């Protein structure tokens, strides 16, 4: 049932080179964006929309005793105050499990949780109204450390953990006995804010027949639709989500898009008027869900010839007040815990724990940056013990076609990691740089080089199967309207889709118009996350294009009087192979389809080729394919201040066919800087559950001045049979590898190992200078 799209496309092109795919063609959104004309959600604001302002809990954990709306309703301009009891449908917006109300009804579980909405005619009235809502709370003991939460008498929910994940493969106990070297450490990888340019926003427009249209910034229009429908008690057909350009997502809007959209929709439903909600930057920092902190105990063993034998991993995810997306990311971290290596014996146990911290969100890497920080530090420590070069040690253990993963999944093809490590090491001149032992003598600034390897399964982490749709309408003039359920969040995926459609149909890329994302045009296509936009969404586009192309081919063969097998369509012209003068323009073909009553439109739909691991043993096939990454970092550490300067990053990906190199470069470099931030700069500092550095002044993302030399990425094109043009996803892979490479490079420079992310100048300074703080 799973079609080999790569082979189908190759057959169609009859061995000819691609005209469009693989080329640096201008992004569909380039001009609009660089000229500032591209429209984002808040650009659709109309003057008559009411303003929605949340009333938030100042307490991390408290019972709601009473909400008095009276004073707020007296404020001039306030239309209404909405509380949990006003929700017409189900007051529920949990991502995987139903533990999260949209509006808190009896209890609050984190600082900033929404207890009411004030709807007013303008911003001033909305703020004044929100201030005037009187909420009576009874404070409960709050807990911010998951280990404390586990041991103490805290009842955030009726259970301490929303869930666990377990993997058992081989015999770990016996394997460790056979190991010559074992390293065991505890790691902490912290939170991170998405810090996207566009804060949360939604505009809800009540439709005449009781339906609701929402324009919002989100990464999952269909999940958003499901949530809005549930909150309002409507059918999915009655809710329409329009997603214009999104100013950055990184996973944050996967989690929060349904929430922000539901808040606007609820207000619009109750007032019967258009309503808008736009978060301030402060709200976006202080109250929007973030990367999950992990504490990881990691034990690795190898034989003296350098072969990995076993890992034992136990970790805790602090999920905050609600489970949100912790289930998925905790599982993903477990499935990838071996790193890019073949490990015959694995025992992995992950557990999520409720605390009164801000709930967690999806964030680029989805648990893997945290987990692989531990894995890759362990790899360096083992290499050192074995007196092996870290690159050589990795190459020796890397997955190859025929390897089995920690979940027992056989990787029969598209496994380019071994080649990739070798090529990135060559590009970075690893061996000669590593050998330069005299580099640090005497100087106060010490240079170091480090490597980090990553992998990331393409497709959503399994609670449901993974599908997507796409549609094409061929117009009488030969131009094409393309719709996808995948969202353009800046990553460039729709450009790749349009290129694949154009290549498959044989028309110039400019003839393909990508329509604004609208749930009423497309079957459910899942979320735009998990490196699935091009991998799954793009394959649906190829599916639709192939179907249409077959009808075009058959029509052309009739008009050209040649065998259907001999028809080639290229750059808007259909012709007979070997006889190019026997031709017809694509435009003529298009109008002929209409004239003859041949359907000129087509839907594509695909289901990813993957299963669900067994809940007891974790064995199975969680992802259809894996993208691999390898980054080498060169750093310079100022031993007098502890500052780390990243001199250069050498990234590489084995992501199958590279559809558009410039788009991939954007992803790889962007991920490099995001990973640099996670490795060295970005800290979420909280006190009693409130983030203290909720501004760009104090939440430090890298600026252009911090940008290291970014070497052009190395690509190993390990094509995947079952996707359009053999592409795999590339959105997250380079982030994961970056902080690992930086951390290993810092160790190489100064000989001091850190087990917490992000690294920090102060820690480095005090440990280098043996000083007490």
């Amino acid at each position: 049932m799973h079609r080999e799209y790569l082979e189908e496309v190759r057959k169609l092109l009859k061995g000819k080179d691609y005209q469009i795919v693989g080329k640096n063609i201008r992004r569909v959104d380039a001009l609009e964006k660089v000229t500032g004309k591209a429209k984002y959600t808040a650009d659709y604001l109309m003057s008559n929309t009411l303003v929605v302002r949340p009333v938030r809990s100042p307490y991390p954990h408290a019972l709601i005793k009473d909400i008095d709306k009276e004073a707020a309703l007296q404020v001039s301009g306030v239309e209404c105050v909405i509380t949990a009891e006003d929700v017409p449908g189900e007051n529920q917006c949990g991502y995987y499990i139903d533990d999260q109300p949209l509006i808190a009804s009896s209890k609050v579980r984190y600082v900033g949780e929404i207890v009411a909405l004030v709807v007013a005619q303008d911003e001033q009235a909305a703020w004044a109204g929100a201030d005037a809502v009187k909420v009576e709370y009874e404070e409960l003991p709050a807990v911010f450390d998951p280990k404390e939460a586990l041991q103490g008498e805290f009842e955030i929910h009726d259970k301490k953990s929303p869930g666990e994940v377990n993997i058992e493969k081989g015999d770990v106990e016996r394997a460790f006995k056979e190991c010559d070297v074992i390293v065991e450490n505890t790691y902490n990888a912290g939170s991170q804010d998405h810090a996207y340019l566009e804060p949360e926003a939604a505009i809800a427009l009540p439709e005449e027949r009781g339906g609701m249209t929402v324009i919002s910034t989100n990464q999952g229009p269909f999940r958003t639709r499901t949530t809005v429908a549930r909150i309002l008690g409507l059918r999915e057909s009655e809710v329409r989500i329009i997603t214009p350009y999104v100013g950055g997502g990184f996973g944050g809007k996967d989690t929060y898009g349904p929430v922000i959209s539901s808040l606007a929709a609820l207000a619009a439903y109750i007032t019967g008027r258009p309503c808008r909600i736009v978060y301030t930057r402060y709200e976006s920092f202080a109250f929007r869900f973030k990367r999950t902190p992990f504490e990881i105990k990691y034990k690795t063993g190898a034989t003296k010839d350098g072969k990995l034998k076993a890992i034992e991993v136990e970790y805790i995810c602090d999920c905050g007040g609600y489970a949100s997306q912790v289930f998925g990311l905790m599982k993903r971290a477990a499935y990838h815990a071996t790193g890019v290596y073949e490990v015959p014996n694995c025992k992995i146990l992950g557990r999520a724990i409720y605390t009164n911290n801000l709930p967690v969100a999806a964030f680029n890497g989805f648990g893997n940056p945290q987990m692989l920080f531990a894995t890759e530090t362990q790899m360096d420590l083992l290499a050192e013990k074995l007196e092996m070069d870290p690159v050589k040690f990795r190459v020796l253990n890397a997955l190859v076609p025929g390897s089995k993963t920690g979940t027992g999944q056989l990787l029969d093809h598209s496994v380019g990691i071994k080649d990739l490590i070798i090529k990135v090491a060559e590009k970075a001149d690893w061996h000669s740089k590593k050998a330069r032992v005299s580099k640090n003598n005497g100087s106060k600034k010490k240079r170091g080089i480090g490597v980090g390897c990553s992998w990331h399964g393409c497709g959503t982490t399994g609670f449901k199967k993974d599908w997507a749709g796409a549609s094409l309408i061929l117009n009488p003039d030969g131009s094409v309207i393309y719709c996808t359920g995948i969202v353009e969040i800046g990553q460039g995926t729709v450009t790749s889709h349009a290129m694949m459609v154009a290549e498959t149909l044989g028309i110039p890329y400019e003839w393909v118009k990508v329509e604004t994302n609208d749930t009423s045009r497309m079957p459910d296509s899942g979320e735009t996350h998990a490196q699935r936009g091009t991998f799954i969404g793009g394959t649906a586009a190829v599916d639709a294009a192939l179907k249409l192309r077959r009808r075009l081919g058959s029509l052309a063969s009739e008009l050209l009087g040649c065998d259907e097998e001999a028809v080639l369509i290229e750059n808007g012209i259909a012709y007979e192979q070997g006889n190019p003068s026997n031709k017809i323009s694509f435009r003529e073909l298009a109008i002929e389809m209409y004239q003859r009553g041949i359907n000129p439109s087509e839907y594509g739909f695909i289901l990813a080729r993957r299963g669900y691991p067994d809940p007891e043993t974790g064995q199975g096939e969680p992802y259809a394919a894996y993208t691999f990454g390898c980054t080498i970092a060169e750093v310079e550490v100022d031993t007098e201040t502890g500052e780390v300067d990243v001199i250069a990053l050498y990234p590489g990906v084995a992501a199958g066919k590279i559809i558009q190199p410039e788009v991939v470069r954007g992803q790889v470099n962007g991920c490099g800087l995001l990973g640099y931030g996670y490795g060295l700069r970005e800290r979420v500092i909280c006190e009693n559950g409130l983030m203290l550095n909720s501004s760009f002044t104090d939440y430090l993302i890298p600026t252009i001045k911090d940008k290291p030399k970014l070497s052009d990425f190395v690509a190993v094109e390990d094509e995947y049979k079952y996707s359009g043009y053999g592409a795999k996803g590339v959105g997250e892979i380079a982030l994961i590898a970056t902080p690992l490479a930086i951390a290993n490079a810092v160790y190489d420079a100064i000989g001091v190992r850190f087990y917490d992310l992000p690294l920090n100048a102060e820690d480095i300074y005090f440990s280098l200078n043996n000083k007490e703080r």
Partner: protein
Amino acid sequence: MEGEIRPLPRFEYFSARSVKEVVSLAEQYRKEARLLAGGTDLLVWMKKRVVCPRVIIDISAVPELAFIEKRGEDLHIGAGTTLNAIRKSELVNTEIPLLAEAIGYMACQQIRNKGTIGGNICSASPAADTAPPLLVLGASISLASAKGERVVPLSEFFLGPGKTLKEPDEILREIIIPIRQGRGAFLKLGRRKSFTLSIVSVAAFGTIENGRFEDLKVAAGAVAPKPLLSNKVQEDLKGISVSEETIDHAAELIKKEVDPITDIRASASYRREMSGVLTKRALRKISGMEV
């Protein structure tokens, strides 16, 4: 909630066109009014409700406040001069390059295009990056009111975080910087390479005669309730020969003199240590040693 950003509160707004007009409004509204120059601090404070003035006196269109002039042995800079105008000024780069250098480390282009030197001084942040260089250069400032004008040394102007000698009816009119021969250095440690508040900043200025420090001044930012001008270094190092030991001694003096706090940007002990490191680097730089 603390630190929350809200829409600007309502206020009465005056756009002044002359210093005379500004001082008359300042006299009329006194504590009810705040002066708006670049607004890079004030507007943020208002959105955070740190301050909520009933009256805003906009001085950004007062031509008399935006100038850079050499008068005799001094350089005069109008309080309303933007940071970027100073940074790019040929006069400043020739006569007091230390100030231009320090401003180069401040914020970003957009903020420097709006922010003014007067605003940076009057906000009286312990981390204000113009303060250490101005202190070591021996700057003074003139304060104008409807009653007249007074000139005070900058070293006396700062009283504590956000607190200065300036009376509610006074405005900072200009900064007066003596043009002197000597070598200067400015060093800033932030949490990233640019666009960041100082964890510590250090400025040094002095002359070296016959291998000895003469009239050496060192000032540090973000390590005390107000920008710190070290008297101790000036006294102890006067006439002392330039050496590693002397420089180490100066760094130790600074580390004793600072009184830093722990906040979300850095710990007090790290700030103290770094004030020493930056002092060393600054003195090595003006001594022509490798930093």
